[in-house]
């Protein structure tokens, strides 16, 4: 195709050819082409087939309002070719066709519409019931547009940026540019987002006069240059704003240029104030076959010529309701398009200058006329038009119908941010009513059409947005009043057409292209009782397709109101939801971050063969070999000495005159008698008495305490204590030391011998006994807090070490332990070791309803604390003596049978409890475990019937035994 050359508005460079593959064959487009404009230049008119009826679909719009030009590009489904730039080597395929878009074997469905009224699938296909699964399979196959393979790997680079600005302007047309310039002149930081690859919006492709002898196109260039010259305007072209959230958080995505390091980039902007100048799209004209290839919107037809250098047809009929249609007819006529007729919906009110030009050029114009039917089986061959009342009609042969009922403001950015709209009878628009805080609309959104008015409105919005950022200064208030005054002297919003549909029955008049919903379907829905647009949307799927409300958004509420004979005031717009432009999941994902915390020992443990797992917010070494039963690790701790990295424990300092009170509020124990140097094990409950945390408390000094929490609770502890003391006015302070201190657990009968080698203090049992706490230095340099604990049931030292010294101490211990063959042990070995000792882990031996008494920790609870009001104590008092509660018991299996799996049930004719942890114990040579069972079953000697998943009729039996299983007197940890 020969393209129009030498137009100043062209965005294509026909001398620079770009090769691409379409349906397996090589074609060429020009640099600057979109995929759709390149295909159009190569004679493609049918781009795909529609969802339901497989009707042929062609180029209708250029800004992605519908899915007509959705194709598969480089394996990515549902790409809107009309605004996707062509790249060298792109592979383009048709979607949703059997055969080709040209000859689709499913095309017969278009004749079956009588069998598929709105919501027909709810009324058929379930009788008899057995046909439904088969029918469903067919529905699934028929539904959906594009295809993606399960092993598809998305190529490309995706970036993300998070920005902060004073004013964010959405829309780089004349109003948006004016707003940005105004705000920028105040010295503010401005971000301007424009979804097309260039600035200029409504002016950019037009040759009409702006003022004096300057064309609109020149004016757009001039403004764009001014914007680019402003250092404090950060310009994002080819960037769609897709979401507006609370407090002016704006999200969007940018398409990368060739030289950019990303293909797409997620953008999140926190703006002080926002200007929405997103302009208008066109309101589709509804008539029979109104989506036949060859029917185009005004902007599409005009920009195909002015931007891409292609005449969109040879002989054309216009059916329009807006001056832009007249202007386009004149321009396209001058470029060589033969115009058979212009049918203008409006009886009057056209721009007189345009009317004169049309008369001068002898283009036939019929006022009060509208297209009623596009003819032609696959592409437009003829069109029928009629007077609006349908009384007189004419037919013209043509290959192009430029059709548009009027304009529709793009208000999604406002409504998504909770702004409201109101139907306006003059413009026929849903106009902004209540704007979100610090958000201003500008330009054509209000129905303005006059270039000067559009700019003035941008200026006003820019001043208002800037004023919001000037922190109380009233400097620009005067300017705002001035700008408002200017606005009142300029042409206001233009009158819009009210026509919703041509005088047709509507069987083939599509209100929503993507979902193949016709006017007839809407009527059917209303008759069935779906009387509000939101329900009709759901029932007919109107506006729920890939283009969302782009096509039906404005027409649906208008039509529904008209059909029901409702007054204007009751017309409400349908909901618009983000993302305002469909956005790739890979773009949203941006750069995927790994968010886990690692301990200071991470690397060294990995070197030692640690198998790591995510545990809460941490990554921890769970095993140190492939043997997940951890036999060697366990035996080493029982018989020798091992080291565990316990750095993930929550660690806190709590100090101040009211420290004891605060501790007693959340911990169930009496803390007042805690002696310096001694360790107190205690637990925390919630208001239901359910045990939520356990740990140890030590007294470091007067009114100065150090305590630990479980790994999982560390993040919430400070807030928990603050919350539960919020009304008391107590004087205490907390420091979360979790990340600044590491923990090494040195355990096993040889632990003392190892530790002795690196410390100077007396470690004998008399000098540093069980349940005692000591602070000392290693090598006069490293401050250590050491605790004699026995979680795993052996002689143990828990060393709390500054994180920065963790590696050093770890290495020292390893060196010192060499002669004993000291080994690492991981979280799973610890789990078994402590289970043999019946030391509980919360979350494992408890669930959300398990209270302190249930797990046998009632002895920790001091009910006589003076100022207590201990969290959970009311509930605990209630629970005392309640025989219906679960109890934690120990059990051994009968007849040497293996341990049941964790989570197995304790049953009789119903579920009576479940197994918390059970293992074949290497230390005891039998299978032992702990279970939560109903109190009735908790007596020693009770036989437990254990039901495992997939066990069928087989059961494992166990017997309740005394706890702990290992070293019941606790000699080993006290030695």
């Amino acid at each position, binding site marked *: 195709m020969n393209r129009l050359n030498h137009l100043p508005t062209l965005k294509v460079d026909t001398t620079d050819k770009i090769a691409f593959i379409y349906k397996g064959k090589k074609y060429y487009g020009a640099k600057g082409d979109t995929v759709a404009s390149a295909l159009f230049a190569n004679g493609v008119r049918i781009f795909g087939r529609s969802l339901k009826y497989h009707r042929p679909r062609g180029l209708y719009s250029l800004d992605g309002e519908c899915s007509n030009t959705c194709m598969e590009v480089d394996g990515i489904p549902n790409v809107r070719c009309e605004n996707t730039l062509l790249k060298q080597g792109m592979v383009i395929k048709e979607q949703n066709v059997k055969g080709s878009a040209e000859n689709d074997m499913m095309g017969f469905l278009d004749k079956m519409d009588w069998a598929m009224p709105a919501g027909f699938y709810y009324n058929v296909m379930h009788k008899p019931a057995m046909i439904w699964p088969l029918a469903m399979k067919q529905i699934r*196959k028929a539904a959906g547009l594009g*295809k993606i393979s399960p092993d598809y790997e998305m190529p490309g680079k995706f970036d993300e940026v998070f920005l902060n600005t004073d004013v964010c302007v959405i829309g780089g047309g004349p109003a948006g540019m004016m707003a940005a310039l105004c705000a920028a002149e105040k010295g503010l930081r401005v971000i301007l987002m424009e979804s097309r690859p260039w600035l200029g919006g409504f002016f950019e492709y037009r040759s009409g006069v702006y003022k004096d002898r300057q064309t609109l196109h020149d004016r757009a260039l001039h403004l764009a240059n001014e914007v680019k010259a402003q250092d404090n305007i950060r310009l994002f072209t080819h960037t769609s704003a897709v*979401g507006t959230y609370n407090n002016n958080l704006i999200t969007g995505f940018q398409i990368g240029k060739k030289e950019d390091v990303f293909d797409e980039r997620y953008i999140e902007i926190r703006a002080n104030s926002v200007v929405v100048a997103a302009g208008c799209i066109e309101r589709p004209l509804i008539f029979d076959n109104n989506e036949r290839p060859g029917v185009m919107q005004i902007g599409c037809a005009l920009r195909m010529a002015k931007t891409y250098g292609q005449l969109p047809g040879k002989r054309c009929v216009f059916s329009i309701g807006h001056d832009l249609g007249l202007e386009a007819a004149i321009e396209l006529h001058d470029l060589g398009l033969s115009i058979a007729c212009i049918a203008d919906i409006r009886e009057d009110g056209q721009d007189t200058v345009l009317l004169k030009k049309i008369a001068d050029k002898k283009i036939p114009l019929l006022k009060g006329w509208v297209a009623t039917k596009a003819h032609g089986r696959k592409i437009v061959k003829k069109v029928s038009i009629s007077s609006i009342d349908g009384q007189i009609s004419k037919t013209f042969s043509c290959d192009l119908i430029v059709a548009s009922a009027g304009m529709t403001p793009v208000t999604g950015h406002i409504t998504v941010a909770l702004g409201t709209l109101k139907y306006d009878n003059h413009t026929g628009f849903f106009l902004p009513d209540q704007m979100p805080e610090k958000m201003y609309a500008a330009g054509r959104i209000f129905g303005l059409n006059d270039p000067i008015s559009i700019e003035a409105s941008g200026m006003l919005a820019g001043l208002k947005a800037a004023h919001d950022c000037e922190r109380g200064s009233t400097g620009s208030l005067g300017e705002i009043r001035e700008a408002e005054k200017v606005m009142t002297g300029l042409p206001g919003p233009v009158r819009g057409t009210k026509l919703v549909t041509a005088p047709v029955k509507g069987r083939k008049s599509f209100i929503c292209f993507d979902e193949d919903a016709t006017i007839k379907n809407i009527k059917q829905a209303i008759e069935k009782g779906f009387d509000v647009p939101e329900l009709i949307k759901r029932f007919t799927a109107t506006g729920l397709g*890939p283009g969302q409300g782009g096509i039906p958004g404005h027409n649906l509420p208008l039509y529904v109101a008209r059909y029901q004979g409702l007054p204007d005031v009751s017309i409400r717009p349908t909901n618009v939801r983000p993302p305002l432009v469909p956005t790739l999941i890979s773009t949203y994902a941006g750069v995927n971050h790994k968010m886990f915390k690692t301990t200071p020992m991470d690397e060294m443990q990995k070197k030692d063969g640690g198998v790591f797992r995510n545990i809460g917010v941490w990554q921890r070494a769970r095993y140190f070999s492939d043997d997940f039963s951890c036999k060697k690790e366990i035996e080493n701790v029982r018989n020798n000495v091992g080291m565990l990295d316990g750095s993930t424990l929550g660690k806190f300092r709590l100090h101040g005159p009211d420290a004891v009170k605060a501790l007693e509020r959340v911990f169930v124990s009496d803390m007042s008698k805690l002696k310096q140097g001694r360790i107190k094990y205690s637990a925390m409950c919630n208001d239901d008495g*359910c045990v939520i945390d356990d740990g140890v408390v030590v007294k470091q000094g007067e009114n100065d305490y150090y305590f630990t929490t479980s790994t999982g609770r560390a993040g919430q502890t400070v807030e928990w204590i603050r919350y539960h003391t919020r009304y008391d006015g107590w004087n205490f302070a907390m420091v979360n030391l979790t990340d600044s201190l590491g923990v090494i657990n040195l355990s096993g009968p040889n632990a003392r011998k190892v530790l002795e080698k690196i410390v100077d203090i007396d470690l004998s049992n008399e000098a540093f006994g069980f349940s005692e706490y000591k602070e000392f230095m290693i090598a006069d340099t490293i401050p250590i807090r050491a605790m004699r604990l026995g979680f795993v049931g052996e002689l143990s030292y828990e060393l709390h070490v500054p994180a920065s010294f963790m590696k050093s101490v770890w290495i020292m211990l390893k060196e010192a332990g060499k002669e004993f063959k000291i080994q690492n042990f991981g979280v799973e070995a610890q789990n078994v070791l402590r289970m043999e000792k019946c030391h509980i882990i919360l979350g494992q031996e408890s669930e959300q309803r398990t209270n302190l008494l249930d797990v046998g920790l009632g002895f920790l609870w001091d009910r006589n604390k003076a100022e207590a009001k201990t969290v959970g104590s009311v509930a605990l008092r*209630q629970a005392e003596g309640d025989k219906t509660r679960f109890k934690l018991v120990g059990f051994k299996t009968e007849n040497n049978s293996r341990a049941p799996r964790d*989570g197995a049930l304790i049953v009789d004719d119903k579920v009576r409890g479940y197994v918390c942890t059970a293992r074949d114990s290497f230390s005891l040579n039998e299978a032992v475990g702990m279970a939560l069972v109903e109190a009735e079953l908790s007596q020693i000697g009770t036989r437990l019937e254990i039901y495992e998943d997939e066990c069928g009729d087989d059961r494992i039996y166990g017997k309740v035994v005394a706890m702990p299983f290992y070293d019941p007197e606790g000699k080993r940890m006290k030695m």
Partner: protein
Amino acid sequence: MFLKNKPMWGKKTKLKSSYDVVIIGGGLHSLATAYYLAKEHGVTDIAIIEKNYIGFGGAGRNTAIVRANQRTQHNVPLYKEALDLWPVLTKELDYNLMFNNCGNLNLMHSEAAMKAARMTIATAQFHGVESHLIDAKEAKELVPALNISEDITFPIHGAMFHPPGGVVRHDAVVWGLAKGAAKKGVEIHQQTEALDIGTKNGRISSVTTSRGVINTNQVLISAGGYSAALIYDMMGIKLPISVLTIQAMVTQPLKPVLDHVVSSGAYHCYANQTLKGEIATGAHMDPWPNYTTLNTAHYIKHQAEALSEFLPCLRGVRFMRIWGGLADMTPDMAPIMDGNEQIEGFFMDCGWGYFGFKSCSAVGKYMAQFMATDQCPDMLKPFALKRYEEHKLMGETAALVNYSPDN
């Protein structure tokens, strides 16, 4: 299909001055209760009072997943019955509810999660509900798009596969039940707001609406996320419910690629493909109580990050719509169903969190029985409000849940 279209839930009628039963809320639980009251108990003089339109709230905002793999024996039978009712209701209502019995695959990302799943699975199997623990490879065979490599944030250890579950077309259930109830004489009053409940001599006497006062002896509030506020406003009963906005979204439609519902606790994300071909995905609740139903920038991004990891082919797919609804969460993630307890003739059915859709059919049946007989059916007894006063939470979740610092 060739017949002339008739209004599915009757012509708009005037509000009468008295009804036997008034149900506040036009969602699924209300419609189902009304339907069963009329069908099984002959109580047809019922007014459903809906402020917006039927299915406006959670009924139209959920992601339509149904399953019966709850954790405890109090819950499993109820959900099992609900699951069994979909084909029955399809037939009874003569309305295709489009039950896609595709099965649910719940991914596990740690040994601890596998253990938790085992208990849930054992409970299901013990109650005759099919559910299995499978390993990562088996999961991949079911869902070829799954990424089972070790190189993701939460590597997949295995999954709970629950074949009887699936997806039901949520809107169809609303319309079908409305149709069924209306056919039996139930009146559905949309665009009508309930303003107050009157009592006399210790029992319910009336409901004041925006269209007039109704005399009645029985009121049910089952207004989804708005129930707790309504019950407090009208009855002064403070419920242990936190209301949070929960979001969900869909991608553009695709040819079949996901044959099962896939969910992941660690990624906080579930995904299933609707019959229309969209990937419906969601799960996130705001971390603070609110009634806004607003979307957040953070969440759609989070969801994209999650999906890119465990279903990486979806990186080439576009999100097209996100929306929010309300989840009314109780501290034990089990609902509150009660009646004649706080005041004679007053019933409530709320606190469903995000389980309201999958339970609606069975709950309607039992709430109807409760209201018609004034006797609480055994099935509903564990869900009485009293359990919170007695600090006896249900064990529906393994871990503690937190919506606010005081839980």
